[in-house]
């Protein structure tokens, strides 16, 4: 109980301790010769030397609304990440040839030099069990797993040949969301809030909503701010209970007292800033102030129960529960109120076929049921409000699934399932300046490798930034002596899906 919240005194003590250790550290450094070599390194890590002219970061008003390089079509993004990786071969990437090969041993040539997460030896091919049809005027392939989404296929632009170079969840999620498979880089949402600020001073610019019972495998780093100032990290909100943890007043503390204590803390922080000039201190002050304003605004925006009944019916929402549908409706409300980036993670898509929940026959059907109607509702709801034009929806995952049936430990699996596959998978985007009703990219006859329109994770990121008005090559942040960008040295905007 005690460790849930720090008392003021404890917190001050902690801070003091941190400062003291830092001072000691510097003293020791400067005594030794190491200081000679070390001091420019230290300087490079603080924003003193790297900052100013080419950062967009104003520590006193870190979330001030800003404009990108070019007039962007999208003003906000709703990113739907299906953590675990759904099977593109069951949902969108139709491979009739694969059906014919069902049950046959996989040819050696496909396995040569390949590494899989679980497949061992020679696996069998697994025909798709999705019933595919071409939908709408665009003729996009969508299977019976997504009956509702199939009805709005003409609104979507599919990327059918995305590839990544990571075949384990955590690194692949990091690569997708931060541009690097290793920890420490800012997430896409952080970059966007760093570049655009927040249109609504009472709400964070970057909100994260999770469902499916677990956080993504890579943990909170997938919405972390990396080396960007910490104000830009995603604020994890919940669709049931308190929307933001620790936002409400503790027992026996009223608004005035809370305000007074925040003022006192901020005063102390201002003093600290005067002494040490660490811009993080300023960010901290503005975070306290934002949290105080959110006390008033958040409960209202975060509450979906005041939406009319027909909206609930449309989305399939049940207020008070933790569900993907609730998060989707909440995402619409947040975007309407000016939040720039809403990141949804839904856990439970890792269809290996080693249990009912991870089977293509049952587990995947259930997962699709949880998202299909809600996403369709989101698209149509944004559309009728005139907001789809300026809201980019991205649906995707960290990688795809193999055309072979998984044979974990060389054994037959109890259910149909597929292993992780990095070489080809499907992502779709909708609204926000994408060209509705397009399909770009194609995989080979069994969906193993891209044969046309191959795009990388970086290309997807570059495209999202482009739609928001950023040139991904010049959108940088100086850190450790060099400018960093989300796409590092890669990435080309995928022009064929732009409107």
């Amino acid at each position: 109980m005690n460790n849930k919240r720090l008392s003021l005194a404890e917190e001050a003590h902690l801070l003091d301790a941190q400062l003291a250790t830092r001072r000691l550290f510097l003293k020791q450094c400067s005594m030794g010769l190491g200081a000679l070599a070390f001091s420019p390194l230290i300087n490079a890590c603080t924003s003193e030397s790297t900052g100013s002219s080419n950062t967009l970061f104003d520590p006193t008003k870190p979330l001030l609304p800003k404009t990108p390089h070019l007039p962007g079509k999208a003003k906000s993004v709703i990113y739907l990440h299906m953590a675990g990786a759904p099977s593109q071969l069951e949902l969108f990437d139709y491979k009739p040839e694969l059906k014919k090969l069902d049950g046959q041993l996989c040819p050696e040539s496909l396995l040569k030099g390949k590494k899989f997460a679980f497949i061992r030896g020679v696996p069998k091919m697994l025909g798709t069990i999705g019933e595919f049809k071409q939908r709408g005027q665009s003729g996009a392939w969508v299977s019976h797993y997504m009956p509702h989404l199939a009805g709005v296929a003409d609104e979507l632009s599919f990327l059918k040949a995305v590839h990544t170079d990571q075949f384990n969840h955590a690194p692949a999620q990091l690569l997708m969301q931060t541009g690097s498979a290793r920890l420490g880089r800012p997430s896409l949402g952080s970059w966007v809030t760093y570049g655009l600020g927040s249109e609504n001073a009472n709400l964070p610019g970057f909100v994260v909503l999770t469902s499916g019972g677990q956080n993504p495998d890579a943990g909170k780093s997938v919405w972390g701010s990396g080396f960007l100032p910490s104000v830009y990290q995603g604020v994890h909100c919940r669709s049931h209970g308190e929307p933001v943890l620790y936002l409400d007043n503790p027992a026996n503390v009223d608004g005035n007292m809370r305000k007074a204590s925040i003022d006192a803390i901020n005063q102390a922080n201002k003093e600290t800033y005067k002494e040490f000039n660490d811009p993080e201190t300023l960010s901290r002050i503005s975070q306290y102030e934002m949290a105080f304003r959110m006390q008033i605004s958040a409960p209202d925006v975060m509450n979906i129960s005041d939406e009319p009944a027909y909206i609930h019916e449309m989305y399939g929402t049940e207020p008070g529960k933790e569900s993907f549908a609730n998060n989707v409706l909440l995402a619409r409300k947040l975007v309407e109120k000016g939040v720039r980036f809403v990141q949804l993670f839904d856990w439970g898509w890792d269809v290996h076929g080693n249990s009912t929940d991870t089977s293509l026959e049952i587990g995947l059907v259930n997962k699709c049921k949880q998202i299909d109607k809600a996403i369709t509702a989101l698209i149509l709801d944004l559309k009728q409000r005139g907001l789809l034009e300026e809201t980019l929806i991205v649906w995707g995952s960290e990688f795809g699934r193999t055309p072979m049936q998984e044979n974990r430990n060389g054994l037959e699996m109890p259910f149909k399932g597929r292993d992780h596959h990095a070489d080809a998978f499907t992502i779709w985007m909708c609204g926000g300046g994408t060209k509705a009703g397009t399909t770009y990219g194609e995989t080979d006859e069994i969906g193993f490798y891209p044969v046309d329109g191959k795009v990388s994770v970086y290309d997807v990121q570059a495209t999202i930034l482009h739609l928001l008005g950023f040139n991904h090559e010049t959108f940088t942040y100086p850190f450790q002596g060099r400018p960093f960008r989300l796409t590092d040295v890669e990435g080309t905007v995928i022009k064929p899906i732009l409107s």
Partner: protein
Amino acid sequence: MGVLHPLVIHFPIALLLLAFFLEIYGLSATGKKYKASIPLITFLGGIGAVFSALSGYFLMNQGDYEVSSVELHRNWGIALAIGSALLIVLYRFPPKIPHIHLLGQGALSILVLVTGHLGGNLTHGEDFLSLDKPKKEPKQIVLNQDALVYAEIIAPIFEEKCVACHGKTKQKGKLKLDQIENVLKGGKNGFYHGSEEGKMALMSHRMRLPLSDKQHMPPKGKTQLTEREIVIIEKWLSLGARSKLLLKDLQLTEEVVSASMEEKNMPKTADWPLVPDLAAVSETMLTPLRDRGMVVLPLASGHPLLQINCQSLSDFSDKDGELFKGLEKNIASIRLSGTRISDKSLKWISGLPNLSKLYLDNTLITDEGIALLKNTELRYLNLVGTSITEKGLRTLSSLPLLKSVYLYQSEVKIEDMAEIQQRMPKVYFDLGGYKIDTLTMEVRTEEK
């Protein structure tokens, strides 16, 4: 051998400076014990210096660098190699002069630093150490059709993307692109490429090679030419690459010209009006709006057109229209969603010449107000949750650029839409009220 130069040089730099440092440290009591290692370090550093000088000599003779620009670096490098050899001898046969090794190492360190710096200038450019480098603004194409193609457009492109390797200091492939005469001369393979009839400028050929091709220019990893730049250079080369050619002589297509607009932060699509002569408003003029709580942003950084968001201001009313005096031409988008404005506000709104996007959702406006908009350049109109009827919609038929109108929860009836759609075939009307049927597996989207 020459390629080793940039690698090898780091050994003498590190080792000789270390030797000097240890000589100084050796003056103190604690540093004495390291003195024994100095001759060995100097020896290794000296060998490195000699190798560096040799490899540098080969690199120079490969012809990528102009001799005059390398000369100074070469001379210092030779001096360094000789100096380090001498010092090795001084360690082997120490003369009886106090601190002779320390002095020798000091002199050598100066040689190392100067040589290294001169070399650095060659590879990274003269100004690589100066901190306040002039910020490289992305070169913008002059839209003026009377612009000189080479001097005003192509020379800056070469300067930005080629001269680092094809300029005064380096001439990769014996090609210089710093002056028009040198461009026409070409490199070691001349100006032209291919057989007599399929003749084209070698440069066009190399620019068009796929990026993965080793011969592609600029090489992979360097800042690439944009498609527009390639088209302009190609066209200019094919017309004889004369210095007097004007932009209009190239007879470029609309597309290329509008692509150049994009670089000037102007959208090429018709989402926003083109306003080449409009000046941006000063920040001070925007302060009253911001103080009132509006979010005011240019469409893009440096763009003269503004987007204004009043959405969060529940007390925003008709009289706030005053605040926009003097900004009329600059307003491209205004969001009044949920504010307390009425038809009166549409008077000042309809006087905004560049207004393209207008959000009036959930306000008290009526058909009468909408009728005032008939002479605007609106592209997007949001009327969600208003009491607009088909009468008001009809008045919009004179809007030439209108693309989409949102009418969810308005008073417009589906029965009237067929006729209205016929009047305005290019406009997308969305009445909303979508229902998603859960029972059937197939989705049906119905309009209200």
